[in-house]
Structures are given as structure tokens and as C-alpha cells.
């Protein structure tokens, strides 16, 4: 049986949105899939050397569970985003959810190929040294080389 392939496009640079690509990529790799993730636009944040800057936000996100009801304008106050992020991180730790860094390391260990979008790197003025070693730069055509033969292709 030929090896199955999973292709993921990661476009979000929030702490919570970093989980789906890394969870699915690492799990697929453990199941024997060949996996590639193409990080574009805000998704590039998931390839930065440190992921400490990633945050969650409740703004524009009415589905986020809150410990207490809070008017949206209050949620927009300075410091709220950092506060919610540290709450989320401590809840995750308590519940045995892996840190994003750990999941990313597990992906790298499992040979998940990470491609950073060259256009976005140029657009936002990043330098290749801002990103983890092992990341490759490429464009849409590079992604399609793998995605075109994939069994599963997900946009996140």
C-alpha cells in the first residue's frame, strides 16, 4: 500500500489556532502518513523560533468559553488578551494538553515537512533567521507539488 499523504495549509497565527495543524500533522505522521504543512500569512507565526508571543483572543470569537460573562468592550481593555492567554495556557497544562512547542517538536521529529510562504516572508519583512531551522521556503506551486498527490488536504 502506498504511503498516504496529508497536506495542510496553516493560515492563523493565534495560540489556539496553532493546535489543529500540529495535532493533526503529528498524529498523521504517527499513523504513517507523509505530511507537509504550508504556513502562509499569519500562520508563519507558528514557525517562529519561540512561540511565546502567540495569544488567544475572545474578540470576534463569541464561541470562546469565558469563566464569567463579560461585555465585549471590557474584553478589549489593555492586558485582557495577555490575561486570557495565560488563563488558557494554565488550563491546558492542568488538563494534560501538550504545549504548542512540544507538538511542533514532535512534528519535526516525525519528519513533518514545514514550508514557509516566501511571499508572506517578504510581505511582512521577516528574515529566514526568524524561523526554526528545518523550515523551507516555497511558493504555492511548491505546495501543490505535494498537495496535488495528497489523500487529504486541509485549510486551517
Amino acid at each position, binding site marked *: 500500500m502506498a504511503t498516504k499523504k496529508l497536506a495542510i495549509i496553516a493560515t492563523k497565527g493565534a495560540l489556539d489556532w496553532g493546535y489543529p495543524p500540529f*495535532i493533526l500533522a*503529528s498524529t498523521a505522521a*504517527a499513523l*504513517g502518513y507523509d505530511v507537509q504543512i504550508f504556513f502562509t500569512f499569519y500562520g508563519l507565526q507558528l514557525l517562529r523560533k519561540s512561540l511565546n508571543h502567540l495569544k488567544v483572543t475572545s474578540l470576534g470569537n463569541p464561541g470562546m468559553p469565558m469563566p464569567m460573562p463579560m461585555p465585549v468592550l471590557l474584553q478589549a481593555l489593555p492586558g485582557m488578551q495577555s490575561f486570557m492567554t495565560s488563563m488558557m495556557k494554565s488550563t491546558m497544562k492542568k*488538563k*494534560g494538553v501538550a504545549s504548542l512547542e512540544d507538538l511542533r517538536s514532535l512534528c519535526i521529529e516525525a519528519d513533518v515537512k514545514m514550508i514557509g510562504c516566501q511571499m508572506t516572508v517578504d510581505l511582512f519583512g521577516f528574515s529566514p533567521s526568524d524561523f526554526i531551522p528545518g523550515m523551507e521556503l516555497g511558493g504555492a506551486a511548491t505546495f501543490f507539488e505535494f498537495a496535488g498527490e495528497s489523500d487529504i488536504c486541509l485549510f486551517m
Partner: protein
Amino acid sequence: MATCDKELDARGLNCPLPILRTKKALNDLTGGQTLRVVATDPGAIKDFQAFAKQTGNELVESGEANGEFTFVLRKKA
């Protein structure tokens, strides 16, 4: 309870860590050897069945006691 060639304590870990650690632990075994995994993630029951089915490693035992799930996998030859 039969002895296994390797034990993995995945208690307190949440999805997908029990599966990822299991995969890693299986890498240290040779075909036919067995691995016992203890987990507390309720999602693990279905996940271990699915893992076994997709990877060809046989799930030879699966049980639950006091909120802990025990799985024994035999590595694919």
C-alpha cells in the same frame, strides 16, 4: 496480567499525546513484542482501536478500571 516487553505511562496526558508516545515506544520494540499503555484520556479507547487498525499493530488487550484505560499492543512483524 501477562508481562509486556515495555510499559508506557500515559496517564494525565491528553490527545494526541498518548498516541504519539505510543508510536515512539513501539519504535524501540521489534516485531512481535508487546507494549502496555496506561492512559486516562477517555478518547483513548477509540483512538487506540483506530491506531491499531491503521498501523497494523495488533491491539491484543483493552480494558478499563478505576478511570484508567489499559491497552496492550503487539508490534507488527
